[in-house]
Protein backbone atom coordinates (compact mmCIF):
# COMPACT_ATOMS: atom_id res chain seq x y z
CA UNK A 1 0.00 0.00 0.00
CA UNK A 2 1.35 3.41 -0.88
CA UNK A 3 1.68 6.18 1.66
CA UNK A 4 -1.59 7.70 0.56
CA UNK A 5 -3.34 4.45 1.36
CA UNK A 6 -4.14 3.87 -2.30
CA UNK A 7 -3.83 0.33 -3.58
CA UNK A 8 -1.45 -0.16 -6.48
CA UNK A 9 -2.71 -0.68 -10.01
CA UNK A 10 -2.14 -4.11 -11.59
CA UNK A 11 -2.52 -5.28 -15.18
CA UNK A 12 -4.32 -8.58 -15.66
CA UNK A 13 -3.57 -11.20 -18.31
CA UNK A 14 -5.83 -14.21 -18.78
CA UNK A 15 -5.25 -17.36 -20.78
CA UNK A 16 -8.49 -18.83 -22.08
CA UNK A 17 -9.25 -22.53 -22.36
CA UNK A 18 -8.39 -22.69 -26.03
CA UNK A 19 -5.71 -20.00 -26.00
CA UNK A 20 -1.99 -20.57 -25.91
CA UNK A 21 -1.07 -17.09 -24.75
CA UNK A 22 -2.14 -14.84 -21.92
CA UNK A 23 -4.07 -11.87 -23.23
CA UNK A 24 -4.29 -8.52 -21.54
CA UNK A 25 -7.86 -8.04 -20.37
CA UNK A 26 -7.80 -5.08 -18.01
CA UNK A 27 -6.52 -3.74 -14.73
CA UNK A 28 -7.50 -3.59 -11.08
CA UNK A 29 -6.41 -2.22 -7.72
CA UNK A 30 -4.92 -4.51 -5.06
CA UNK A 31 -2.70 -4.18 -2.02
CA UNK A 32 -0.23 -6.91 -3.05
CA UNK A 33 0.37 -9.71 -5.53
CA UNK A 34 -1.63 -12.31 -3.67
CA UNK A 35 -4.66 -10.07 -3.46
CA UNK A 36 -4.24 -9.05 -7.10
CA UNK A 37 -4.44 -12.68 -8.25
CA UNK A 38 -7.58 -13.27 -6.18
CA UNK A 39 -9.19 -10.08 -7.39
CA UNK A 40 -8.30 -10.93 -10.98
CA UNK A 41 -9.97 -14.29 -10.55
CA UNK A 42 -13.11 -12.63 -9.19
CA UNK A 43 -13.26 -9.72 -11.61
CA UNK A 44 -12.04 -11.21 -14.89
CA UNK A 45 -12.74 -14.96 -14.87
CA UNK A 46 -16.24 -15.13 -13.41
CA UNK A 47 -17.75 -16.24 -16.70
CA UNK A 48 -15.33 -19.10 -17.36
CA UNK A 49 -12.98 -16.90 -19.33
CA UNK A 50 -9.78 -18.37 -18.07
CA UNK A 51 -7.59 -21.26 -17.00
CA UNK A 52 -4.59 -19.19 -15.97
CA UNK A 53 -4.06 -15.65 -14.74
CA UNK A 54 -1.03 -13.38 -14.68
CA UNK A 55 -0.86 -10.06 -12.88
CA UNK A 56 1.89 -7.50 -13.05
CA UNK A 57 2.13 -4.15 -11.38
CA UNK A 58 1.32 -1.49 -13.91
CA UNK A 59 4.33 0.60 -12.91
CA UNK A 60 6.60 -2.36 -13.74
CA UNK A 61 5.56 -2.26 -17.37
CA UNK A 62 7.96 -0.40 -19.62
CA UNK A 63 6.13 0.99 -22.63
CA UNK A 64 7.26 2.50 -25.88
CA UNK A 65 6.92 6.25 -26.10
CA UNK A 66 3.81 7.31 -28.06
CA UNK A 67 5.76 10.37 -29.22
CA UNK A 68 8.29 8.12 -30.91
CA UNK A 69 5.67 6.35 -32.96
CA UNK A 70 6.79 7.89 -36.24
CA UNK A 71 10.39 6.74 -35.96
CA UNK A 72 9.54 3.50 -34.16
CA UNK A 73 6.87 2.02 -36.39
CA UNK A 74 6.34 4.00 -39.59
CA UNK A 75 9.59 2.86 -41.31
CA UNK A 76 8.16 -0.67 -41.56
CA UNK A 77 5.36 0.54 -43.80
CA UNK A 78 7.16 0.04 -47.14
CA UNK A 79 9.11 -3.12 -46.33
CA UNK A 80 6.72 -5.72 -47.63
CA UNK A 81 9.72 -7.92 -48.48
CA UNK A 82 9.91 -8.75 -44.80
CA UNK A 83 6.77 -10.84 -45.18
CA UNK A 84 7.53 -14.35 -46.43
CA UNK A 85 5.09 -13.96 -49.31
CA UNK A 86 7.53 -13.83 -52.23
CA UNK A 87 8.68 -17.41 -52.26
CA UNK A 88 7.14 -19.92 -54.61
CA UNK A 89 6.61 -23.08 -52.64
CA UNK A 90 6.98 -26.45 -54.34
CA UNK A 91 3.54 -28.03 -54.88
CA UNK A 92 4.29 -30.70 -52.30
CA UNK A 93 4.41 -28.17 -49.49
CA UNK A 94 1.94 -25.63 -50.83
CA UNK A 95 -0.79 -24.31 -48.57
CA UNK A 96 1.45 -24.78 -45.59
Amino acid at each position, binding site marked *: MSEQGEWALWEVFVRSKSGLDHKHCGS*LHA*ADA*KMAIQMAR*DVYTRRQEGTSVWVVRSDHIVASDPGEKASFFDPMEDKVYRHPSFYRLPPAVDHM
Partner: protein
Amino acid sequence: MQTASEIDAGIAVQYLLRIGDTALIQAQRLAEWCGHAPALEEDIALSNIALDLLGQARAVLTRAGTVEGRARDEDQLAFLRDEREYRNVTLVELPRGDFAVTMARSAMLAIFFKLLWQRLAGSSDAELAAIAGKAVKEARYHRQHAADWVVRLGDGTGESRRRMEAALQELWPYTAELFADDEIDRHAAATGLGPRWSELEAAWRGEMESILAEAGLQAPAATPFLSTGKRGLHSEHMGYILAELQYLQRAYPGGVW
Protein backbone atom coordinates in the same frame (compact mmCIF):
# COMPACT_ATOMS: atom_id res chain seq x y z
CA MET B 1 -21.42 -45.56 2.34
CA GLN B 2 -23.69 -48.28 3.74
CA THR B 3 -27.24 -47.40 4.58
CA ALA B 4 -27.49 -48.66 8.11
CA SER B 5 -31.18 -47.92 8.52
CA GLU B 6 -34.09 -46.48 6.63
CA ILE B 7 -34.01 -42.70 6.08
CA ASP B 8 -36.90 -40.90 7.77
CA ALA B 9 -37.95 -38.30 5.20
CA GLY B 10 -39.05 -35.78 7.82
CA ILE B 11 -35.70 -35.87 9.59
CA ALA B 12 -33.74 -35.90 6.33
CA VAL B 13 -35.59 -32.76 5.26
CA GLN B 14 -34.59 -31.05 8.51
CA TYR B 15 -30.96 -31.98 7.92
CA LEU B 16 -31.10 -30.63 4.37
CA LEU B 17 -32.86 -27.43 5.42
CA ARG B 18 -30.13 -26.70 7.96
CA ILE B 19 -27.59 -26.77 5.13
CA GLY B 20 -29.72 -25.01 2.51
CA ASP B 21 -31.02 -22.30 4.84
CA THR B 22 -27.58 -21.55 6.27
CA ALA B 23 -26.26 -21.06 2.72
CA LEU B 24 -29.33 -19.00 1.79
CA ILE B 25 -29.17 -16.57 4.71
CA GLN B 26 -25.40 -16.17 4.45
CA ALA B 27 -25.88 -15.37 0.74
CA GLN B 28 -28.46 -12.75 1.67
CA ARG B 29 -26.15 -11.17 4.25
CA LEU B 30 -23.19 -11.08 1.85
CA ALA B 31 -25.36 -9.64 -0.89
CA GLU B 32 -25.96 -6.63 1.36
CA TRP B 33 -22.41 -5.59 0.45
CA CYS B 34 -23.27 -5.29 -3.22
CA GLY B 35 -22.49 -1.68 -4.08
CA HIS B 36 -21.07 -0.99 -0.59
CA ALA B 37 -17.80 -2.94 -0.35
CA PRO B 38 -14.62 -0.97 0.37
CA ALA B 39 -13.30 -1.46 -3.17
CA LEU B 40 -14.93 -2.25 -6.50
CA GLU B 41 -12.90 -5.46 -6.85
CA GLU B 42 -13.94 -6.65 -3.40
CA ASP B 43 -17.54 -5.78 -4.16
CA ILE B 44 -17.47 -8.17 -7.11
CA ALA B 45 -15.72 -10.85 -5.05
CA LEU B 46 -18.37 -10.70 -2.32
CA SER B 47 -21.18 -10.81 -4.85
CA ASN B 48 -19.57 -13.84 -6.52
CA ILE B 49 -19.38 -15.63 -3.19
CA ALA B 50 -22.96 -14.71 -2.34
CA LEU B 51 -24.07 -16.14 -5.69
CA ASP B 52 -22.10 -19.35 -5.10
CA LEU B 53 -23.89 -19.76 -1.77
CA LEU B 54 -27.23 -18.97 -3.35
CA GLY B 55 -26.57 -21.66 -5.96
CA GLN B 56 -25.78 -24.16 -3.20
CA ALA B 57 -28.94 -23.14 -1.34
CA ARG B 58 -31.05 -23.61 -4.47
CA ALA B 59 -29.70 -27.09 -5.09
CA VAL B 60 -30.12 -28.24 -1.49
CA LEU B 61 -33.57 -26.68 -1.06
CA THR B 62 -34.70 -28.31 -4.30
CA ARG B 63 -33.49 -31.63 -2.92
CA ALA B 64 -35.22 -30.96 0.41
CA GLY B 65 -38.47 -30.25 -1.45
CA THR B 66 -38.19 -33.52 -3.36
CA VAL B 67 -37.44 -35.58 -0.26
CA GLU B 68 -40.29 -33.86 1.58
CA GLY B 69 -42.73 -34.92 -1.14
CA ARG B 70 -45.15 -32.03 -0.70
CA ALA B 71 -44.40 -30.54 -4.11
CA ARG B 72 -42.64 -27.49 -2.68
CA ASP B 73 -39.92 -26.21 -4.96
CA GLU B 74 -36.86 -24.12 -4.12
CA ASP B 75 -38.77 -20.84 -4.43
CA GLN B 76 -41.58 -21.90 -2.15
CA LEU B 77 -39.07 -23.08 0.43
CA ALA B 78 -36.91 -19.97 0.17
CA PHE B 79 -39.66 -17.39 -0.01
CA LEU B 80 -42.85 -18.70 1.54
CA ARG B 81 -41.92 -20.28 4.86
CA ASP B 82 -42.38 -18.51 8.17
CA GLU B 83 -39.50 -17.70 10.44
CA ARG B 84 -39.70 -20.76 12.66
CA GLU B 85 -39.54 -23.09 9.67
CA TYR B 86 -36.09 -21.81 8.74
CA ARG B 87 -33.31 -24.04 10.04
CA ASN B 88 -30.19 -21.94 9.46
CA VAL B 89 -27.70 -21.51 12.28
CA THR B 90 -28.06 -18.18 14.08
CA LEU B 91 -24.51 -17.14 13.15
CA VAL B 92 -25.53 -16.21 9.61
CA GLU B 93 -28.51 -14.08 10.59
CA LEU B 94 -26.54 -11.69 12.78
CA PRO B 95 -26.25 -8.23 11.18
CA ARG B 96 -23.59 -7.90 8.53
CA GLY B 97 -21.57 -5.58 10.77
CA ASP B 98 -18.40 -3.99 9.48
CA PHE B 99 -16.00 -5.59 7.02
CA ALA B 100 -14.18 -7.40 9.84
CA VAL B 101 -17.40 -9.04 11.07
CA THR B 102 -18.26 -10.05 7.52
CA MET B 103 -14.85 -11.60 6.90
CA ALA B 104 -14.61 -13.33 10.28
CA ARG B 105 -18.02 -14.89 9.75
CA SER B 106 -17.23 -15.77 6.16
CA ALA B 107 -14.07 -17.59 7.29
CA MET B 108 -15.91 -19.46 10.05
CA LEU B 109 -18.62 -20.54 7.68
CA ALA B 110 -16.44 -21.33 4.67
CA ILE B 111 -14.27 -23.67 6.74
CA PHE B 112 -17.37 -25.31 8.14
CA PHE B 113 -18.95 -25.73 4.71
CA LYS B 114 -15.74 -27.00 3.17
CA LEU B 115 -15.50 -29.72 5.82
CA LEU B 116 -19.21 -30.51 5.53
CA TRP B 117 -19.23 -30.74 1.72
CA GLN B 118 -16.16 -32.98 1.83
CA ARG B 119 -18.11 -35.43 3.96
CA LEU B 120 -21.37 -35.02 2.06
CA ALA B 121 -19.58 -35.98 -1.16
CA GLY B 122 -19.88 -39.51 0.24
CA SER B 123 -23.53 -39.20 1.22
CA SER B 124 -25.92 -42.12 0.75
CA ASP B 125 -28.13 -39.59 -1.05
CA ALA B 126 -26.58 -39.56 -4.53
CA GLU B 127 -28.03 -36.16 -5.38
CA LEU B 128 -26.69 -34.56 -2.23
CA ALA B 129 -23.31 -36.17 -2.93
CA ALA B 130 -23.29 -34.60 -6.41
CA ILE B 131 -24.19 -31.16 -5.03
CA ALA B 132 -21.39 -31.50 -2.47
CA GLY B 133 -18.83 -32.46 -5.10
CA LYS B 134 -19.42 -29.18 -6.88
CA ALA B 135 -19.87 -27.01 -3.78
CA VAL B 136 -16.67 -28.09 -2.08
CA LYS B 137 -14.60 -26.35 -4.77
CA GLU B 138 -16.50 -23.14 -4.18
CA ALA B 139 -16.13 -23.43 -0.41
CA ARG B 140 -12.37 -23.89 -0.76
CA TYR B 141 -12.12 -20.58 -2.55
CA HIS B 142 -14.43 -18.84 -0.07
CA ARG B 143 -12.18 -20.08 2.71
CA GLN B 144 -9.07 -18.78 0.99
CA HIS B 145 -10.64 -15.40 0.31
CA ALA B 146 -11.96 -14.90 3.86
CA ALA B 147 -8.89 -16.32 5.61
CA ASP B 148 -6.73 -13.94 3.62
CA TRP B 149 -8.74 -10.98 4.93
CA VAL B 150 -8.75 -12.24 8.52
CA VAL B 151 -4.94 -12.34 8.38
CA ARG B 152 -4.69 -8.94 6.65
CA LEU B 153 -6.95 -7.25 9.17
CA GLY B 154 -5.55 -9.03 12.22
CA ASP B 155 -1.98 -8.38 11.15
CA GLY B 156 -2.72 -4.94 9.69
CA THR B 157 -3.10 -1.57 11.38
CA GLY B 158 -4.09 -0.95 15.00
CA GLU B 159 -7.59 -0.09 13.83
CA SER B 160 -8.05 -3.15 11.61
CA ARG B 161 -6.75 -5.40 14.38
CA ARG B 162 -9.12 -3.86 16.93
CA ARG B 163 -12.04 -4.44 14.59
CA MET B 164 -11.09 -8.05 13.85
CA GLU B 165 -10.71 -8.79 17.55
CA ALA B 166 -14.11 -7.25 18.23
CA ALA B 167 -15.64 -9.29 15.39
CA LEU B 168 -14.25 -12.53 16.81
CA GLN B 169 -15.55 -11.67 20.28
CA GLU B 170 -18.99 -10.97 18.88
CA LEU B 171 -19.29 -14.03 16.64
CA TRP B 172 -17.41 -16.72 18.50
CA PRO B 173 -20.21 -17.67 20.94
CA TYR B 174 -22.43 -18.45 17.93
CA THR B 175 -20.02 -21.02 16.51
CA ALA B 176 -20.93 -23.50 19.24
CA GLU B 177 -24.26 -24.13 17.53
CA LEU B 178 -22.50 -25.43 14.43
CA PHE B 179 -21.28 -28.45 16.35
CA ALA B 180 -24.12 -29.08 18.79
CA ASP B 181 -25.59 -32.45 17.83
CA ASP B 182 -29.16 -33.56 18.21
CA GLU B 183 -31.40 -36.38 17.01
CA ILE B 184 -31.29 -35.03 13.46
CA ASP B 185 -27.52 -35.35 13.30
CA ARG B 186 -27.66 -38.82 14.78
CA HIS B 187 -30.24 -39.97 12.27
CA ALA B 188 -28.30 -38.49 9.36
CA ALA B 189 -25.15 -40.26 10.50
CA ALA B 190 -26.95 -43.56 11.08
CA THR B 191 -28.48 -43.52 7.60
CA GLY B 192 -25.35 -42.33 5.82
CA LEU B 193 -27.05 -39.12 4.71
CA GLY B 194 -24.30 -37.01 6.24
CA PRO B 195 -22.03 -36.58 9.24
CA ARG B 196 -23.02 -35.48 12.68
CA TRP B 197 -21.84 -31.87 12.62
CA SER B 198 -19.90 -32.39 15.85
CA GLU B 199 -17.57 -34.65 13.86
CA LEU B 200 -16.35 -31.55 12.02
CA GLU B 201 -15.45 -29.58 15.11
CA ALA B 202 -11.85 -30.69 15.67
CA ALA B 203 -10.84 -30.02 12.06
CA TRP B 204 -12.70 -26.70 12.05
CA ARG B 205 -11.01 -25.58 15.23
CA GLY B 206 -7.60 -26.60 13.87
CA GLU B 207 -8.03 -24.59 10.66
CA MET B 208 -9.50 -21.61 12.47
CA GLU B 209 -6.68 -21.53 14.98
CA SER B 210 -4.00 -21.71 12.31
CA ILE B 211 -5.56 -18.72 10.51
CA LEU B 212 -5.81 -16.78 13.75
CA ALA B 213 -2.21 -17.64 14.62
CA GLU B 214 -1.09 -16.27 11.26
CA ALA B 215 -3.11 -13.13 11.98
CA GLY B 216 -1.52 -12.81 15.42
CA LEU B 217 -4.92 -13.32 17.03
CA GLN B 218 -6.33 -15.78 19.50
CA ALA B 219 -9.60 -17.65 19.52
CA PRO B 220 -11.90 -16.25 22.21
CA ALA B 221 -12.70 -18.52 25.12
CA ALA B 222 -15.72 -20.78 24.83
CA THR B 223 -18.94 -19.63 26.52
CA PRO B 224 -21.94 -21.65 27.74
CA PHE B 225 -24.18 -19.78 25.28
CA LEU B 226 -25.79 -21.94 22.62
CA SER B 227 -27.88 -20.40 19.85
CA THR B 228 -30.82 -22.34 18.44
CA GLY B 229 -31.39 -21.22 14.85
CA LYS B 230 -31.14 -24.70 13.41
CA ARG B 231 -34.03 -25.76 15.64
CA GLY B 232 -36.12 -22.89 14.27
CA LEU B 233 -35.68 -20.49 17.20
CA HIS B 234 -34.00 -17.45 15.75
CA SER B 235 -32.53 -14.16 16.89
CA GLU B 236 -34.42 -10.89 16.61
CA HIS B 237 -32.60 -10.18 13.33
CA MET B 238 -34.15 -13.03 11.39
CA GLY B 239 -37.53 -11.41 10.82
CA TYR B 240 -35.95 -8.39 9.17
CA ILE B 241 -33.96 -10.56 6.80
CA LEU B 242 -37.05 -12.48 5.80
CA ALA B 243 -39.04 -9.27 5.33
CA GLU B 244 -36.52 -8.20 2.72
CA LEU B 245 -35.90 -11.64 1.26
CA GLN B 246 -39.57 -12.51 0.90
CA TYR B 247 -40.99 -9.13 -0.04
CA LEU B 248 -41.33 -9.65 -3.79
CA GLN B 249 -42.77 -13.13 -3.55
CA ARG B 250 -45.27 -12.04 -0.90
CA ALA B 251 -46.29 -8.92 -2.83
CA TYR B 252 -46.49 -10.69 -6.19
CA PRO B 253 -47.24 -14.35 -5.41
CA GLY B 254 -45.90 -16.73 -8.04
CA GLY B 255 -43.94 -13.98 -9.73
CA VAL B 256 -41.03 -15.29 -11.81
CA TRP B 257 -38.28 -13.65 -13.80
